């Protein structure tokens, strides 16, 4: 009985600007069920970080509890990670981010982790515009605890051996839009051509970047009656339009397809090109909400980049915090002494 990933890779594997191959961004071998959508999301994160030539040690992966929340073990094995408590990933991410603003925070959560137990935490991280990528691997069920319906299950959707779900579903993209997220996208684990540029855009975005990735649970919720199974999603998904992500240093080489209808320059100078029909701007939050609702009413799943505000001000900016990571401050700055505390207290009198 062996289940070990071989060390050998394709000898022609491309390298990125750092001289790394995709192998440098891999993690441990997945223990998820064979065919779980979550593994494809991990592969997409690996691909995005490889293509952006992100130094693995600059990334912190943070998650809660669930099959989805287990996945940070399976990608970016050379990065930092914190597997926290069920639904509590946002507070751990907030704390880490405030202590060290120089890291790249990638939060991975599930629909149970985010829309049930962690809904309150999610709401506040969103409205604070915490600078992080927040990915929900949405399978409409609690995979890890054997497939109970989650709060994102659509009315009438039924999992394996389950009854049709009687409750209204939470649409996490609509919620994120309402709560003030500054980068909102939806995608499908089975569509890496769409998902990888969305993750790249989210990594480059400054502020709260939320991606709801429909990621089928093959074991409990890939039934013909489920609206989160591979076949249903493929048949019902529609894209806002194609998206290209052009990183800063690539711009001169112009290796993107021409013919885009909208262009968004992100905080770090990288550019998003959208090939989208219709007049609605991707910077229009209300239009995005309308489009999501409209598609839902027609029984379609709208995917792609729904909304982005490239001029958003992330939490550190709002709070006016110190510009460096706390670990780079000296003891005198970090512990200014009891007199400093007294002065602060006095200022409130």
């Amino acid at each position: 009985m062996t289940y070990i990933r071989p060390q050998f890779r394709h000898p022609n594997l491309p390298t990125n600007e750092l001289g790394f191959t995709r192998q440098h961004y891999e993690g441990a071998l997945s223990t998820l069920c064979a065919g779980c959508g979550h593994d494809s999301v991990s592969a997409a994160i690996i691909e995005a970080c490889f293509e952006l030539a992100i130094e693995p040690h600059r990334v912190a992966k943070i998650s809660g509890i669930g099959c989805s929340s287990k996945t940070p073990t399976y990608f970016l094995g050379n990065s930092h990670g914190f597997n926290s408590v069920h639904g509590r990933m946002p507070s751990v991410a907030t704390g880490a981010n405030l202590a060290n603003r120089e890291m790249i925070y990638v939060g991975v959560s599930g629909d149970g982790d985010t829309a049930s137990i962690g809904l309150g935490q999610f709401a506040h991280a969103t409205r604070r515009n915490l600078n992080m990528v927040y990915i929900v691997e949405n399978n409409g069920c609690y995979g890890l605890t054997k497939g109970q319906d989650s709060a994102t299950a659509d009315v009438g959707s039924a999992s394996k051996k389950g009854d049709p779900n009687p409750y209204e579903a939470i649409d996490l993209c609509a919620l994120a839009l309402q709560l003030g997220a500054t980068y909102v996208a939806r995608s499908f684990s089975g569509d890496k051509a769409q998902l990888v540029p969305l993750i790249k855009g989210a990594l480059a975005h400054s502020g709260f970047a939320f991606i709801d990735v429909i990621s089928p649970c093959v074991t409990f919720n890939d039934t013909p009656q489920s609206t989160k199974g591979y076949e249903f999603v493929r048949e019902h998904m529609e894209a806002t339009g194609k998206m290209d992500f052009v990183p800063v240093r690539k711009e001169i080489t112009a290796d993107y397809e021409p013919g885009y209808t909208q262009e968004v320059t992100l905080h770090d100078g990288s550019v998003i090109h959208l090939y989208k029909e219709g007049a609605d701007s991707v910077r229009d939050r209300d239009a995005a909400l309308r489009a999501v609702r409209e598609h839902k009413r027609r029984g379609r799943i709208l995917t792609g980049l729904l909304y982005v505000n490239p001029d958003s001000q992330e939490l550190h900016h709002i709070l006016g915090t110190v510009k460096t990571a706390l670990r780079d401050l000296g003891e005198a700055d970090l512990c200014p002494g009891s007199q400093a505390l007294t002065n602060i207290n006095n200022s409130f009198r």
Partner: protein
Amino acid sequence: MKPTNIKDPEFFHRVVDCQYACPAHTPVPEYIRLIAAGRYTDAYMINWESNVFPGVLGRTCDRPCEPACRRGRVEAEPVAICRLKRVAADNKSDISGRLPKVPSRKNGKRIALVGAGPASLTVARDLLPLGYAIDLYDEQAKGGGFMRSQIPSFRLPEQVLDEEVGYILGMGVVTHFNHYVDSLKGLLAKGYDAVFVGSGAPRGRDLPKLPGRQDADASIHIGIDWLASVAFEHIKDIPKRVIVLGGGNTAMDCCRTARRLGGEEVKVIVRSPFADMKASPWEKEDAIHEDIPIIDNHVPLEFVVEGGKLVGMKFDRVEARYDADGKRSLVSTGAEPVFYPCDTVLMAIGQENAFPWIERDIDIEFDQWEMPAVDRITFQSSNPRVFFGGDAAFGPENIITAVAHGHQVAVSIDLFCRGEKVAERPLPGTTLISQKMGIHEWSYDSQIDTDARYKVPHADKAAALSDRRVEVELGFDVATGYKEAERCLNCDVQTVFAESLCIECDACVDICPTDCINFIANDEEESLRQALRMPALNLDQPLYVSAALKTARVMVKDEDMCLHCGLCAERCPTSAWDMQKFLYQVTKAAPIL
């Protein structure tokens, strides 16, 4: 592209690189697994069925399988396929009970074989179980052909050869040794139903016009004649200073033999650049290790004779120039000729066929180079009763090629004697069987070891040089043999895809360590090869293409870098991928095992 037809035996055959490259198509991974399992006799028999001389070939094969081996593409060096064969031969137990049964009642057909080399012996082995009566003629006193007269015993001990020749002769061959066949017409007149010519390529090339050739004759030998004289102990020593002319394996055998017979300053001098020499890299290494310098880019000008005695040779220094088509010419550098002193010269500059004993009026066509017209598939000559094989058919090759020819000749002779069309060849036997035993369990060892290729230990150099019978290579011991066997990637365990089961979840794409698998829009092969996640640049390896899937895309797998690790099948939720062992067996005239 059209969906791949995996029912075509040639498709998966190509994926088993070593077996495909082996002229006799020995099922290599099958025997390597048996070695790993310690089943040496079974491993030996798989070889014996296919290549007839596992002990000999495990020491001497030209091993075309190794440059082809997939392992050499995913890491530095191929599996030591050839030396593993020797592990099977060295560790097997008595196989006499496993040899094919030869009927005591004959089928009434009589076959004559000329030459007792590997080609003839293979024909004999394949036909005897069918009841043919076999007469074998050779001018030498024992069987084996060039394996006995040419390959030095420090590479191939005599008892190994005797054993494997003996298995075949013991099956009831009627031998006529010390019998030179001087007339094919005469042989045909004896009423044989078919005659096989396996007489090899017995004539060594000379430099008859080089100045000094006649005067120095007493000190000049044709390499292959000299090696035969050493093998049969007509020659036991050689003067101290020896020049060997030539850059092939015969030159390497000559120089190394000369070192053992008393040659102290033995040099190989070759016209071409070192890198272009015909000798296998390992033969060159072994010669250099025995203190034999190889001097390249030197074209012989003259045998220098003083006082009626050879004192040395003069050479022109040249350099290789290559034209636009890569054709080489050796151009003189214009420098002064160089003189190398010597007492003896061994000429190993090539071999030719010669058929002085075949009359030209017996319906056998010969071309302008005096080579017989032989069909490349049936090995039949223009005289339907006469077949050629081994070095006699198309010029000098090697043992394994002679064996491969022998199998086909036996099939042809059997068809011919039964009055059937020799051109209608039986198809190879193939099986394709799932290896799944349970979750994470396969009936082959799918785990991939990263060990680098193990080196075969050598005998002490001084001891080896003091006696030409001391075998230089010692072979792998059992423990090292096991570790080397574990390097094999099991390329015969195929990834078989069932499109009807695929849900396009990408699990296989995500897990595949070498990025072989793609789900992509179909296209022409050329564009498809470029469009894959890792472009499929090795045109020797096929693309495996499915029929259209639900999304209208197709699955395209580049077979080139597949490690046969089974992870795609492991990660597939619907078992659309399965690992199935493909066994390809060249059809023999009679079942052997």
